[in-house]
């Protein structure tokens, strides 16, 4: 975390010197690199003082960083090309959303000053979740009979799947998750996605997923079975 001393030192830089400092990118090794938290803190200070020149300078630096964070988030979450066609567009949308929170919500701004990366992840995940909700809303407004969740729930005659966890099995599950993750949101229903991700992405127990979803173990096993069948069909070439 940056200190008030470091803040004062940055605040004392003239615009030319600050611009030069803001171009430094090596956050791991360069002691003169200005962390995101500090750039944003200075931005808020300039906003409070209505120092437009400083505000523009710091906003530009934050924009470059936010676009880069956003692009990496979009790629890591496989939003591109599945949910948004263009990585630049995805980055712009995420960054705009992040800015909206930074500018309009005092609690978010305060958190960003302390832990910018953590704040970014929180809001970027929110953006992603809202994007999915919007997509589902659009889909449901066009569908009249989209009730595959119910179809899964009424398959009461399936045996419960066994859930033995060995280190090899856990590793294999995570490897499988990484392999198919990019297509999951496109081929699975919401509950199938949640079930598959929690079981395979972080090795939850079936009982734990059931408790979280508020459904029976049998339902979770049905979601799991259905998800695996779809994944098998999708990736069986």
């Amino acid at each position, binding site marked *: 975390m940056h200190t008030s001393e470091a803040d004062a030192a940055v605040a004392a830089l003239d615009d030319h010197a600050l611009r030069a400092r803001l171009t430094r990118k090596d956050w791991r090794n360069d002691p003169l690199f200005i962390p995101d938290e500090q750039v944003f803190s200075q931005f808020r200070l300039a906003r409070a003082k209505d120092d437009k020149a400083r505000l523009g300078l710091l906003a530009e630096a934050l924009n470059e960083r936010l676009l880069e964070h956003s692009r990496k988030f979009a790629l890591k979450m496989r939003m591109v090309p599945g949910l948004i066609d263009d990585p630049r567009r995805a980055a712009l949308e995420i960054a705009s959303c992040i800015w909206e929170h930074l500018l309009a919500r005092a609690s978010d701004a305060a958190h960003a000053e302390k832990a910018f990366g953590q704040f970014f992840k929180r809001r970027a995940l929110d953006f992603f979740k809202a994007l999915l909700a919007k997509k589902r809303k*659009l889909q449901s407004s066009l569908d009249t009979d989209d009730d595959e969740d119910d179809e899964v729930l009424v398959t009461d005659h399936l045996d419960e799947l066994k859930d033995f966890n060995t280190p090899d099995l856990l590793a294999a599950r995570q490897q499988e998750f990484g392999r198919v993750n990019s297509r999951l949101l496109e081929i699975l229903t919401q509950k199938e996605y949640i079930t598959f991700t929690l079981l395979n992405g972080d090795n939850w127990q079936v009982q734990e997923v059931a408790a979280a979803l508020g459904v029976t173990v049998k339902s979770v096993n049905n979601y799991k079975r259905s998800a695996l069948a779809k994944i098998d069909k999708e990736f069986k070439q």
Partner: protein
Amino acid sequence: MTTPNRRLSLDEVLDEFFYSADKPTPAQVIRACEGHPEYRADIVEFAALWTAYEASSEPAEDASTSATHAEDVSFLQSFVLNRLHELDGKPASTSDLESTKRAVAALKGAKLARAAAFVGFGSNVLLLAKVLTTITNVPARIVKDLAEHLQVLQADLQQCLRPRVAGARSYSAARAPNAPGSETWESAVRALPVSEDEKKRLLAFQDGDAS
């Protein structure tokens, strides 16, 4: 989990949930769901997306796509400065953004059809649904007329239409992925199952935007 004196918003619940751990654990998720059963679906979905994020490998860097483009920085700069002007430049009157969001969310069925007719779409209800969800460059005239129909401020309505993105493919597993989710006004109109004359009429909604 704290015992709230008032009902916490979903945002507050997710904040409390997210900022209390490095990654979602079963115990933490179940506790949050039990504490806020009204948000169970949102909490679990958020936990799943968070889990997916933590479990996903870092993207392979492609030199052709990794650079940040100056025009994107410039675009974002305009966005930020405009928002600052809106937020800091206006008097501290109460924002009607929440009521605008509610009005937009209520646009379904017959209300959606009435709104479509009001803004001049005729019976093309799908086009208005796309205005609310996927079209990236909604003509200003439509925003103005829709704001008038909903009796809300244009600026607030613009906020509700932002970010202008939506999912690109079907979430349903029962059918093949469908059309791209974000599209331009022109492509949305051209995709409508209407006559060429009607498309020409709808495309003309953009005419005032270029000036």
